[in-house]
């Protein structure tokens, strides 16, 4: 039995790993080795404390985090495949419980999880006058569900909508957790079974739990209170989804026996970056005292760039990336845009990320990268089923999964699908998707996405794989589609950047009105604190180089912003950064091949 991994932990991490009984809160600042601590803890529970892997439940916020933890634990335990069954997101774990238990609530086991579009259709049937109203209703319903038993009454059409869902044997995304709550509250014997099974519960990103998730964790926590939560109040950024950072701050009140451990040594970022991040977030009031530090080499000073507008912002970022790579085409060398002899260094495209506040900021960046021919991908964090192409395919896949079900499909297509069904026990999911593309003319991107998703089921017939595949499509995110071989610059919102790290980070649009974002009018004090945490999250993604950009002119949703730098920038002490101003047209316009823009 090897516990060598303990030697690689710092004292606080080791303490957290070896704490196996009773409630534990790990306050883990950004980049302090949280995932490592969590995974080592699980390995330790299995190896040293003799806990049966089946008795461990680990809840994460993203599928990616779950997957990464599984890999790391398997590696620590020297296994090829992780023995741990129950590492997953709240939604996927709940979906799995419901597939077993839902009949007592009056649904069939093969209930469907609706897409946004389907929810809107359902609301229109339930009485919404038009799509816009249905969409507004949906927003309110989701907010209502995520606040769970809020004092305010149910929004309009709520009960009609819920009845329609049930009648269709369907659930929406939020219901997955609410149904499990109802299940556990109504049937204590079922709860007891799960409580008995999940004797050790670990919850990641505890500060981002919304009330239903919070309640679920507390219901499931057994009398031994073997509950370990990990989080960082300074990274709580999901208030808009109903998350309550207070849950995090009150852990000790909920569990008076709780031990609290702090991870404060940052291993990710240079001391300059860590300091700046601390200076920004320490202006907040709602936080738990902790002091991030790093003993790495001081590192490069942060660059604060003032640019003319969003176009110049995008252009500057692109040329900086080209420079960091020592030029990406002969053009740079022939035109001296890259200094001769400049070392291409160590980076690849995937070492760089561009962060911003709003998805709407992605467009000019994408255009600039496209024009320069530099691979980039916009990680919008969007759910897969919100992608238009998925809307086209899902009804067909559903119909194939269960032809008895009523499906709104043209008769011609239905007939072709019925013909296809004959192969359900012979051909693979990949074959099925190829056949489908013949029936309904799937475009290239859709085909590629579906094939990437289907590659997880290489050895199964599509008859057996389809239910799981449908669930993947419901719970998946677009990041699941990217080819892992492709290195590209990542464009993403600061929200989507949570949990990620990149050697080089650009944060753009750091202007008043955009950071903190003023949705309508002036943000409240609470909102400003949340925005400041978001900026803190953004800064702490950077490992070596950090660039903060603000523009003198920007149009956002058709309205001009004041063009002043974000007040948050003032919180960073001058010794940590170098500020530059880029005048308009400081670089002569590039003379490139005129055809390039056409395609």
């Amino acid at each position, binding site marked *: 039995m090897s516990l060598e991994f303990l030697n690689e932990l710092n004292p606080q991490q080791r303490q957290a790993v070896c704490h196996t009984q009773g409630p534990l809160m790990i306050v883990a600042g950004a980049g302090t080795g949280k995932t490592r601590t969590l995974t080592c803890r699980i390995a330790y529970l299995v190896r040293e404390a003799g806990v049966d892997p089946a008795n461990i439940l680990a809840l994460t916020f993203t599928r990616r985090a779950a997957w990464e933890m599984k890999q790391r634990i398997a590696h620590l335990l020297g296994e090829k495949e992780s023995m741990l069954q129950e590492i997953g997101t709240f939604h996927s774990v709940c979906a799995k419980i419901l597939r077993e238990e839902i009949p007592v609530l009056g649904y069939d086991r093969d209930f469907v999880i609706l897409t946004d579009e389907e929810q809107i259709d359902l609301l229109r049937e339930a009485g919404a006058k038009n799509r816009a109203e249905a969409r507004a209703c949906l927003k309110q319903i989701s907010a209502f569900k995520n606040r769970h038993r809020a004092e305010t009454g149910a929004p309009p059409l709520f009960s009609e909508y819920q009845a329609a869902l049930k009648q269709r044997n369907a659930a929406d995304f939020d219901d997955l957790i609410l149904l499990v709550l109802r299940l556990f509250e109504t049937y204590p014997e079922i709860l007891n079974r799960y409580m008995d099974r999940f004797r050790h519960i670990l919850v990641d990103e505890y500060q981002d739990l919304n009330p239903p998730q919070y309640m679920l964790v507390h219901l499931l926590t057994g009398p031994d209170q073997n509950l370990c939560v990990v989080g960082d109040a300074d990274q709580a950024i999901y208030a808009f989804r109903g998350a309550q950072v207070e849950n995090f701050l009150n852990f000790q009140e909920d569990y008076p026996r709780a031990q609290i451990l702090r991870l404060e040594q940052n291993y990710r970022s240079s001391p300059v970056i860590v300091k700046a991040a601390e200076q920004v977030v320490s202006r907040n009031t709602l936080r738990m005292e902790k002091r991030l530090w790093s003993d790495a080499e001081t590192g490069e000073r942060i660059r604060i760039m003032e640019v003319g507008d969003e176009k110049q912002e995008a252009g500057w970022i692109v040329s900086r990336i080209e420079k960091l790579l020592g030029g*990406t085409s002969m*053009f740079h060398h022939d035109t001296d845009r890259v200094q001769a*002899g400049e070392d291409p260094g160590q980076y690849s*495209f995937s070492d760089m990320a561009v962060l911003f506040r709003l998805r709407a900021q992605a467009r000019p960046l994408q255009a600039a990268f496209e024009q320069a021919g530099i*691979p980039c991908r916009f990680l919008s964090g969007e759910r897969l089923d919100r992608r238009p192409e998925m809307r086209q395919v899902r009804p067909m896949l559903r119909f194939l999964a269960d032809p008895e079900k009523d499906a709104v499909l043209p008769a011609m297509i239905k007939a072709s699908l019925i013909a296809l069904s004959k192969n359900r026990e012979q051909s693979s999911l990949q074959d099925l998707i190829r056949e489908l593309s013949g029936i309904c003319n799937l475009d290239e991107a859709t085909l590629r996405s579906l094939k990437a998703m289907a590659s997880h089921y290489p050895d199964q017939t599509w008859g057996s794989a389809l239910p799981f595949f449908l669930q993947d499509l419901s719970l998946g995110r677009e990041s699941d589609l990217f080819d892992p071989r492709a290195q590209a610059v990542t464009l993403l919102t600061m929200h989507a950047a949570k949990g990620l790290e990149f050697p080089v980070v650009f944060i753009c649009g750091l202007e008043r009105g955009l950071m903190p974002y003023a949705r309508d009018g002036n943000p409240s004090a609470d909102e400003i604190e949340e925005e400041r945490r978001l900026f803190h999250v953004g800064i702490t993604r950077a490992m070596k180089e950090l660039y903060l950009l603000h523009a003198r002119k920007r149009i956002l949703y058709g309205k001009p912003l004041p063009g002043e730098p974000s007040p948050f920038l003032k919180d960073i002490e001058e010794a940590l950064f170098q500020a530059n101003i880029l005048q308009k047209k400081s670089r002569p316009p590039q003379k490139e091949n005129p*055809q390039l823009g056409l*395609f």
Partner: protein
Amino acid sequence: MKFIADLHIHSPYSRSTSPQMTLPNLDQWAQLKGITLLGTGDFTHPAWFAEIGNKLAPAEEGLFSLKESNRKDEEIPASCRGEIRFMLSAEVSCIYSRDGQTRKVHNLILARDLASAAKINEALSGIGNLKSDGRPILGLDSRDLLQITMEASPENILIPAHAWTPHFSVLGAFSRFSSIEECYGDLASAIPAIETGLSSDPPMNWRLSGLDRFTLISNSDAHSPAKLMREANLFDTDLSYPAVREALRADRNSKTFLGTIEFFPEEGKYHYDGHRSCGLRSTPEQTRGYNGLCPKCGRKIVVGVLHRVEDLSDRPKDHKPPAAKPFQSLVPLQEIIAEVFNVGVGSKRVQKEYMRTLSALGNEYTVLTAAPVTGIAQAISNELAEAVRRVREGKIHIDPGYDGEYGKIKIFEPEERTLASGQMGLFT
């Protein structure tokens, strides 16, 4: 049959490429040059791929010819006319990091047929953007590109492009791979050949025993029609994709791949070391003397091809492996004419004289290698005849290229020119 093949060129969809690189123009210029088999270039670009499908018709197995309706035969001197074939080719710029270092490698891909090329395009479009550049930049490891290429068809071919140039090549000073195997790993054995690039010639490559198993090929990497065939390959085999592939893979003793047409390597842009912005040209030895740093600006000197070859070589300078293929070093005819007239290579006068020469004597390859010197003197001028003779004998002077600056060819000494006109007075 014997024929000349230039397999690496670019379409107008590639950056800094002339809009003149259309398929009809390529067909025309290949005839002027004496090429029989030409790469299409850029099959990864959707618009160019569509154009290939529209303007070319299938010919011999895996090869294509320009459809009759697109031909410009009337603009081609009768002395040069020939049948041109195209082979699907593309170049991909792989920029990635491996083992904590940035790697930038250009790879040439030859595709078996349209279906195999389409498969490659489909796979690569999932990796990156193929539309913004005819030579796409992908964040893909060269090894994975090779895998994708071979999965699309086992008969596809991947060849490391201009293998020695400093910035974008497998063995270049900045990518820092020290062998083909290090870069392509477990799949390296699928690579039959390397492209030696303008700044190196076969004898330089012979100095690495690790390259003995590769066929050393040469292509123009042309971005404008006049640059076609500045380097090219000589085959003696059937005109078909499978035959060309076999020739590239064949044992060195086979006579299906005859050898290459070469630039004088000194004329290449990266033969020596140096700093263009500082006007510093240095030999490898001088660079070592400077400890690799520019004496003018203090930054790193761009290490050229000769230097890099010396660093990686395990054989002395004059080593010639058994069964090494022969090669001919040439200077493009337009450059020779420009030198004769002592004017710029792009000038009208050079173009006119070039066409007059081809009309009288045949395609450029014939003029450069086969036309009798006396014949050139009679048909065109004594000066051109003398210049061609000197090029054939290698009796020319070149200021070697460095850091992106082409080498400067001098065929005649200043004192050979009359003072009055600046032109040749040698034989008048």
